[in-house]
């Protein structure tokens, strides 16, 4: 069990992204911070900052000179400095000059052309899931639908056994939501993940096949094979980065449509609007907040930042900035100008963004085709995940026939 989070007195000076009111709905807090201070601070987690303006979030995302990606999940300890510029899970944990090559290795496997080939299989799986839910009055859109989709897709891409799906979900939970666990417990949980991946690597070394794991084992960077640590770190990243992010995005979209009949009816009537609507749902309910570590003591836009302070990159806050978006707090499903940052900005732009968009579109198409009319069965029963990836984890939906 995670330790309980100490109540937050004031989010401007003592914020906690695991705080109860933040988890339930961070947006009113973000708007309050936007008026009072553009950069919030906390002594928690050994010191952390959180800008809420798009301009500031972008500036930090671009500034790899002063901010390191050595780790991107805020915790109570910092990894040793000498793990930079590679980090434990390249390329997300990597800094220049290593980052570019580690990212380049993966890009072709995640290009729009490569992802398009995965669409028929993804669609068949989504249809299988809705088939299984048919006839029920209440279904959990997060636990019984959204979460299964990215797990299946990434397990197939990496060439892992499909029946290990429950295990992957546990790894995700342990690593991303367990930051307030006692350290020893946290260490053991991370070890369990790496142990699993090492076994998969051994199996692929013995039996190479046409999947991403074998691809990584063969891949070269600067004329040399990737080190075993690099391969396992990247596999951990792909497993973790793709699952609860996409699950959150699908779940938040269903949540919005369940409580906004006008938008839902419009998408059922005009399915060609879906790609535009998805961009808006990604903007309004951006699931991911990343983090950086300050490299050296410095004054940044008036903030006295210390080496190894965290900086939270709140893409959700950037996406609601009224300086950049008209009616920023409203969901406008046919919004034409939408320069949102849900997939990040700059050199670490989400490598899986084409995959995530495909999954999101196919998941919503399959759902809406089968269940055009649905609503929240019990708004109070919806449970959101804490921490840096935000989405519904319990989402009881009443399906009307």
């Amino acid at each position, binding site marked *: 069990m995670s330790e309980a989070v100490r109540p937050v007195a004031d989010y401007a000076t003592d914020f906690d992204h695991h705080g109860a009111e933040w988890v339930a709905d961070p947006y009113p807090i973000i708007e309050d911070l936007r008026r009072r201070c553009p950069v919030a601070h906390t002594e928690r987690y050994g010191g952390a900052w959180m800008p809420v303006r798009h301009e500031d979030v972008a500036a930090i995302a671009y500034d790899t000179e002063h901010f390191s990606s050595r780790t991107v999940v805020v915790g109570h300890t910092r990894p040793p400095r000498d793990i930079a510029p590679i980090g434990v899970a390249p390329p997300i944990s990597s800094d220049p000059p290593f980052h570019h090559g580690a990212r*380049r290795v993966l*890009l*072709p496997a*995640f*290009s*729009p*052309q490569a992802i398009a080939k995965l669409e028929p299989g993804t669609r068949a799986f989504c249809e299988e899931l809705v088939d299984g839910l048919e006839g029920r009055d209440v279904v959990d859109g997060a636990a019984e639908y959204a979460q299964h989709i990215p797990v299946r897709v990434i397990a197939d891409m990496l060439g892992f056994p499909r029946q290990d799906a429950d295990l992957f979900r546990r790894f995700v939970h342990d690593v991303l939501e367990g930051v307030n666990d006692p350290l020893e417990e946290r260490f053991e949980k991370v070890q369990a993940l790496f142990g699993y991946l090492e076994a998969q690597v051994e199996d692929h070394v013995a039996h190479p096949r046409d999947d991403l794991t074998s691809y990584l084992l063969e891949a070269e960077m600067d004329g040399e094979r990737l080190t075993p640590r690099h391969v396992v770190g990247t596999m951990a990243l792909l497993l973790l980065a793709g699952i609860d992010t996409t699950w959150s995005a699908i779940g938040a979209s269903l949540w919005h449509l369940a409580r906004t009949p006008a938008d839902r009816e419009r998408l059922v009537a005009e399915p060609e609007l879906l*790609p535009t609507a998805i*961009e808006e749902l990604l903007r309004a309910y951006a699931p991911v907040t990343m983090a950086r570590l300050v490299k050296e003591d410095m004054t940044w836009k008036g903030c006295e930042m210390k080496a190894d302070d965290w900086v939270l990159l709140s893409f959700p806050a950037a996406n609601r900035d009224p300086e950049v978006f008209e009616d920023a707090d409203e969901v406008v499903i046919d919004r*034409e*100008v*939408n*320069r*949102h*940052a849900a*997939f990040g*900005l*700059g*050199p670490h*732009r989400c490598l899986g*963004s*084409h995959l995530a968009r495909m999954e999101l579109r196919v998941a919503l198409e399959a759902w809406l085709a089968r269940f055009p009319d649905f609503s929240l069965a019990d708004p109070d029963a919806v449970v959101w995940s804490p921490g840096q990836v935000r989405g519904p984890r319990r989402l009881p939906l009443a399906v009307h026939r």
Partner: protein
Amino acid sequence: MRVRIDRDRCQGHGRCYSLAPELFQPDDIGDGVVVGDGVVTPGQEDAARRAALNCPEQAVVIEEEA
């Protein structure tokens, strides 16, 4: 009107080639590249502007007089 992509800014978000496939296409790593010489024919102007306004990196450049 002519479009061009600033290669130093482009990070492969892919908004341009999704919104205006007649003007932009992905390369093998998903970065945007201009189709042909980038000249925008009448009727494609809105698509060109939409791509520019939706690129998160502001990498799509529109040259009005060309």
